[in-house]
Every structure is written in C-alpha cells, then in structure tokens.
C-alpha cells in the first residue's frame, strides 16, 4: 500500500471539534429551532433522518462484506460529524453560551446558530416523525433531503439520471467534487446563518480554518476512496485547487453578509474573525515575531491570510499570464478591510464582486482535469513563492504547507517517479515547524526565519 503523506496536525483540529466523552441524551421534543436553519435551499422536501438509511440491507451493514452497504456503521463509529450535536451539551458549549451573555436563555442545543452546523439543517416543518436532531450532521446534511429519492436511489434506473436530475429530486451528487465541497464549506467556512464570528470564538468556539484537501483526507471515508481516484486521477491536486476556490467564494460571501449585516446594524463591525488571528494574538516580544508586509501600515489589522493567500498563485499557474481579475479584486478588498474603520457598504459590494469573479473559475476546475504537467506547474508556482512573504505569518505558511503536501500527493499519483524521500522529508520538516501542541492555540514559538529557510529548501528539492 502506498504510503500517503498525511497532514497530521490539522487532523488534531478536526478531532478537537468533537468531544468523545459520553453525554446525556437529549429529547428532540424539548427544542425546536426556527425554520430558518437551512443553509442550502431545500425546497419543499421532507428530511427523513439518519434512521431511514440504517437498515442492515441498506447502509447499516457491519463492514464484513466491505465498505459498500456499511456507510452508516463507519459514520456512526468513526465520523466526528456523528457527534456534532452531542458536543452542544458539553462543558465547553455551556461556557460558550454563558460567555455570549446575549440575553438569550436557551442552551446551545436549542439555539439556531449552533444547530445550523451541529445538526441536520432541516426546517422544523420538514421533518419526518423519525427525524431527530441528536443524529448530528447526518446523511442528508450532505446528500440532501431524502423524501423524493429514498425509495428509488438503489434502482437501476437511478444510475441513468444525470447529476442535475438527481439534484432536482433533492439529492446532492456528492460524487462530483465541486458539489461535495459546496456541502463542506457551508458549515466549515460559514454563512449568514452559520457565522462563527469573533464574539463566538472569544466565547470559546474553535476558530474555523478549513482547507479542503486535508479535511477530505482526514475525514473517515464511508465511501471507497478508490472510486474517487478512478473518477478523478488528479483527485488530490484537484480537491486542493477546487477547495481553495470554493472556500474563497464562500468566505467572500460570508464577508459580504457580515458587512451587509453591519450596515443594517445587526452584526458587529469590523468583524475581527476576518483578520489574521495571530497578528494580534501573540505575546509582546522584544523583536517582532511576524514580518510586516511592505504595503501594510505598521500595527494595523491584517486581512486575508487564510482563504486568499494562494489564489494569485493558482490563477497565474492555471490561467496563464494576463488574467489579473482575482488578485485585483482581492487587493481592493484588502485595502478596504485594512482601514481602521472599513466602510461596510463598500466592503459588501467588493466582496460580492470578488466572489462572483471566482464562479467561472470554480466551474472550470470542476470540469477540467489536471494532468501531471499542470499539477507540476502549480506545484512549482507555489514553491517558488517569495519565501519571506510565505513565512511572514503562520496562516500563510500553513496554507503553503497544505498546498505543497496536496500537490505532491497529486503529482505522485499521476507521476510515481516524482516521489522521493528527500521531498517527503522536506515537507515533514515544514510540518514540524508549524505544529502547535493544541491545534487551536497560537503558535507561540513560530519562527519566520526557520520557516523561510525550510521553504527555500522545499523550493530547491521540488524545482525539477
């Protein structure tokens, strides 16, 4: 079995999301969120609940005959999504609610903001009798409300339907990478209804920092990943590239919603969660720990280091020279956001514009495969980034690491001759420099100098 290069420390962040301790059961009758918890348009379709999938003849097998037919067993035992609702009753969630101090007496399991991501987003009047919130993020969260496809998706005729026809019946065709990623970013990046903002983070909620390639790699697969590779030989690289664009689109939509909400007076502004956490959250030191950008006013907020750092690289490698729409729109947005008092109306417009500019790009990446030459081109562009800038903050450095790892995996799938222990060791060395003991703590000993040197080494070893 081929040894895969995994992104171990990011896994910790995923696991931290869910407490593994047993928690008291919760009666669904005790709380009914509003009908506005839906993240995706569900139309007038009923959600059947996880129970409708778990027959041992369907998806509730016990994996003795392989993964197919045992999807529920894998999800229930291994997938943190299965425990997403339970964590709302743990000590941390109770502390978050206490710290919010917003005058709302409801506990976390009863709050729409929490349920938007920690349970199936089924509107209250669209739930079958067996539906229960206690299932957490269940099957229909990603696969869509099952009313119109539950009884026919196992028939031969189902295979003849196009993805659009399946979507029309309520099932999201998650075998398509772009559709799959769109389900992820709804919660893992956020939306107007599911907004993990700085108030919530300060109250105790972990920061959201989603990167598609590593999250897909670490999520326990209840499907056969070989099918992914068969459909997408460039899967690792494509998941990363498409993930960058889909995450950025969603992040820009979220920014637009935050700014519009602020202009309307019901969201805080400026929204601190938009900015680089560690530009502020670091101890005071004799010498600076993060290197300031040349175009950045000393001591001011830093925007856009997580979701947008590698978009310029992706665009220049993918689209070729001459196309500058994405970097320009981001530059404009950065200038607006890094003012001490960003203009909310202006930011809402600029963010919407930037998000729209990414749509055709996402569609194209969904359609077109990346051959070895294109993946290598991407990898070279990323490793040749200005090492000082890439190392200037932890967020930028981590995005570079995740890009390097995903593209290396992708390239070695397409061109096994590219694999080498030296390259792998260089990546492991970078990961070690970026690791923090608790995934959500700040990188107290982050050293831009060491990371820059390691990035230079990676450039050298990947320069073929």
């Amino acid at each position: 079995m081929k040894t895969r290069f995994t992104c171990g420390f990011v896994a910790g962040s995923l696991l931290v999301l869910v407490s593994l301790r047993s928690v008291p059961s919760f009666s669904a009758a005790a709380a009914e969120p509003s009908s506005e918890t839906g993240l995706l348009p569900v139309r007038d379709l009923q959600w059947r609940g996880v129970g409708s999938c778990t027959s041992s003849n369907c998806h509730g097998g016990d994996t003795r005959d392989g993964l197919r037919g045992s999807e529920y067993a894998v999800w229930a035992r291994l997938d943190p999504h299965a425990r997403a609702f339970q964590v709302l009753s743990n000590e941390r969630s109770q502390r978050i609610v206490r710290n919010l101090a917003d005058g709302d007496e409801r506990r976390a399991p009863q709050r729409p903001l929490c349920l938007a991501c920690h349970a199936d987003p089924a509107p209250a009047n669209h739930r079958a009798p067996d539906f229960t919130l206690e299932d957490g993020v269940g099957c229909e969260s990603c696969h869509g409300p099952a009313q119109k496809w539950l009884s026919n998706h196992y028939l031969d005729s189902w295979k003849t339907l196009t993805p659009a026809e399946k979507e029309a019946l309520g099932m999201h065709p998650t075998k398509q990478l772009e559709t799959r990623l769109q389900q992820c970013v709804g919660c893992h990046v956020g939306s107007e209804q599911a907004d993990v903002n700085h108030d919530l983070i300060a109250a105790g909620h972990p920061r959201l920092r989603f990167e598609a390639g590593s999250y897909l790699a670490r999520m326990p697969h209840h499907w056969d990943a070989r099918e992914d590779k068969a459909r997408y030989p460039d899967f690792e690289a494509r998941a990363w590239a498409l993930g960058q664009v889909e995450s950025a689109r969603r992040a820009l939509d979220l920014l637009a919603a935050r700014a519009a909400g602020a202009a309307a007076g019901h969201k805080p502004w400026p929204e601190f969660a938009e900015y680089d956490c560690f530009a502020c959250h670091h101890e005071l030191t004799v010498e600076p720990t993060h290197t300031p950008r040349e175009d950045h006013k000393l001591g001011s907020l830093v925007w856009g280091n997580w979701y947008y750092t590698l978009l310029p690289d992706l665009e220049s490698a993918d689209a070729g020279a001459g196309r500058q729409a994405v970097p320009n729109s981001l530059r404009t947005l950065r200038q607006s956001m890094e003012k001490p008092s960003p203009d909310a109306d202006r930011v809402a417009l600029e963010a919407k514009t930037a998000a729209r500019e990414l749509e055709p790009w996402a569609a194209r990446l969904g359609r077109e495969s990346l051959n070895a030459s294109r993946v290598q081109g991407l990898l070279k562009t990323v490793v040749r980034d200005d090492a000082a800038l890439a190392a200037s903050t932890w967020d930028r450095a981590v995005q570079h690491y995740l890009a390097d790892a995903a593209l290396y995996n992708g390239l070695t799938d397409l061109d096994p001759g590219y694999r080498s222990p030296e390259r792998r060791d260089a990546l492991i060395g970078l990961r070690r420099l970026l690791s923090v003991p608790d995934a959500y703590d700040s990188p107290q000993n982050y050293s831009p100098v060491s990371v820059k040197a390691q990035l230079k080494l990676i450039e050298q070893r990947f320069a073929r």
Partner: protein
Amino acid sequence: MQLFALIRRVLVPAVVVALLGAAEVLPRAAAQEKPTLKPFYYGAPMCSGRTGCHGDKEPVKDTKSICRCIEATIWEQKDKHRLAYDTLTGARGQAMGKLLGMDVTDPQKGCVACHGVIVPAGATVHEKSFNKAEGVTCVVCHGAHAEWVDEHASVTRLEKFRVLPREIKEKDYGMTDLWHADKRARVCASCHIGNTGERKVVTHAMYAAGHPPLPGFEIATFSEEMPRHWQYPREKSEEVQKIQNFSKEFARFEQTRLVLIGGVASFRESLRLLGSQAEECAKASDTARRVLDFAQFDCYACHHELRTPSWRQTRGYPGPPGRLSMRPWPTTLVRVALRQQGRQASEMDTQLRKLAGAFTERPFGNVEKIAAEARALETWSEGLLKAVENEPIDVAGACRVLEELASFAEEEYPDFDAARERAWAFLIVFGELKEKPYTDELKQPAGKKLDMMLDLRLPPRKGNDPQIFAGLPKRLECMTNYDPIRFRLLFGEVAQALVKK
C-alpha cells in the same frame, strides 16, 4: 427733611465705608491673582555648575539647608531621565524612526516631548546651560520660570525666599511644589501615562515599531527608582520640616499618601488622556480616524497567546465577548482609596459601567460615548482625590490600606500591570510603616517568588545604559507567563503574612 437727614448721616457714610472696604478688598483680590511668570528654559549645568548649588559630591552638613546640594550630581550620574534623549539617537530609537518614517529627534513631530525638553516659542533660553541632548532635566519637573530660579540662586534674596510657603513659591514664583502629591503625579503622569495637550502620546504604531510597552505607573515606586535625589520628609531636620510645613502626619506617612493620591491621580490622568483622544476621534471628518488609536485599549485584550484552557473564557466577559476595553490597571488603587474613605470598592465598578459599555458596544467602541463617559469619570475621580487629600493617615489607616491591598473581590482577575501596581503599593506602604526600604521584602523567599512572577525591581542605570531594554526580555516573559489566579494565590499568601507582622 428728617428722612433726608437720615440718609445723609447714616447711609452715605455706610456707602462710603462699603466702598472703602471694597477698595480694600479689590487690591487684595488683585494681589491673589496669579502673576504672569516668565517662561525660562535652562539646562542641568546651570543647577550643578557652581559649588554650593546642586552639583557637589558630598551632601551638605548644614541641617538647616532644605537641599543636600548633591541633587544634580545624583541626576547626572544615576537618573535614567538623563539618558532619555540618548535613547532617541541610539540603535532602537533610530530603527523606530526608520519604520515610522520620521525623525524621532524632531522637536515638532518627533519624540522629544517625553524624551527631552520642548521649548515653546517665545520662551527665554539660558544658552550657556541648555542642551537638548540632556534628556529630561530639572526644568521639566521643577518649573520653567525665571522668577524662582533668580530668587533661590540670589545670595541676597535666598534667605527670604527659602522660608516662603511652598504654595507661594509655586504660585508667585513658578517653582512646582513636588511635595504636593497630586502636583507631582500630574508632572510624572504627563509622560508616564500621556497627555494629549502636551503632545505626549505613545501610539500603537510606535509600539509596533519597537517602543517598550508603557508599564503601569505607581508613582512612589517610580520616584524611588529614578533614583530619588531628595530625602524623605522624616529625614529632614525639624527646622526644615517647619519651613516646608511638613506636619508630623505628613512626615510619618508621606509615601502612603503618595501611593493613594498618586493612584487616584493616575486614574484621573488616564481618563483625561482617553477622553481627549476620544474627543479628537469624534471630531474627525475622515471615518478612518474615527477609531481610537489601539494604544488606548487594553494591550492584553489582544496581546496574549491563545491557550486552552483559557482563564479569560473561564472568567467570562462584562459585555459581549472578545471586545476591547480600556487598560484596567489605573483602577487598582482607586478601590483602595474608596475603602480608605469608608466607601464601597464596588463604587468603582458602578462608575465604570457606562464607560465599559461604551467600549464594548461595538468592536472598537463608540468614541462619542467613550469621550463623554471618560470626562464624567475624570470629574468623579477629582472629587475622590480631594477627599483622600483631606483624610489624615495614621498607623491604623496604613494597616487598613495594607489589608485592602491584600484582599481580592471574588470576580477580580487583575492583569499583569494591575498586579504590579498592587504589589508595589503594598511594598511601599509596608516599608514606610516599618521604616525600612520597600525592596527589603523582595529579598525574602516569598518576596523573591513575587518578584519572579512580576519582575518588580526596576533596574538601576549602569553607566550610560538606562537598563530599560536590558530588562525588557524578562518583563515581557513575566507578562507572557502571567496567570491572575496564581498571582492571587501567591500575593494573598505573601501579603496576609506581612499584614500579620
């Protein structure tokens, strides 16, 4: 006719007497108006130059002398203020200037307001002695006026001048009465906290460029560690104590009074700075400038490593979580002053509530409300300060101050600067009560632990090195590792044990 006679015999003389009386009063009133004093800027060599002034090597033995004649010598050789300007021309100052894109030695746009002497337009300068590179010299604290300099330097007029009350020396001759705790606090706080009107404001960009963080300011401790070039009142002869109008109570508890009055004055000056900065923001037409400079917020609200578990999340927040607030250390001694007055310490929280709300209403606060509430609190604190000034202190009172400092409210989580404020105040008051140096307790095992946690010693100058940068890594490390719960436990233990002594 009879009525007319009455008016002529009684009322006219009465009116004349009244008018004469007014004539008596009016010149006296004119005499009580502050005379216009001549601004005069001089350098330290003028004070130390001639033998018999302040530049001697050994203290004068005459017990009738108010001064010891070695003040300028101490300042020249040991005081860090002497090196304040040198830090601008040194490596860090120049590096900061490069990052900020400015000449830090420019008297108009640079850093000289705190690191040197700004000579206002039209002032007379004693060219022979004045040197801008001398740092913060005598003139800054003792008064930039020719009248007192001439009187007290005159061979013929000194005897008459020296026995004048301190208030008259200040009002009529411009010699700042630095024995008056509030007056001293205003002078010190203008730099050590900041003052908008005097252009003494450290901005966040300066910190980002490399300015050491301004520590919490406890005036008695900082006076000691200048080091102090004057004697305590109790060390003066009886004759000098009489001239200077030092009461027995003042002589015995001068440091304790300074701690309490200085503590409230620091709070007032912090609010004055905050209010004036917020007012400037509120008036700005450019929306980018309608946000308070980040240096006006609590540094540690942002500048802390994110760690799980987090004591901040365990503690909770007074309003919406994750919002910025003002620096809390100035409130520390105000609570003690309230208790000294027999009032509740929680009165501080009630007063602060509206200002706190103005800060947390939105992420960078509501500048109009911050300005209004800061000014209101400034006025309130002025009232408290006057009350504290009028309250005599005795042994029992000093012990009560120590007991207050040794105890914490249940929900109190002092930050690093507030912890130092409390520890310094305690050591000063305790040292005065026992009539020994405040640093003695830091040599004991428990005091050493406290020192390790809070870096309480302000290091003395070494030659031409003020030691502020040399000591910075240790201070910042203590700041990073600081935990309010461990501080409460340790300080509570140390302080309670000392109170029992």
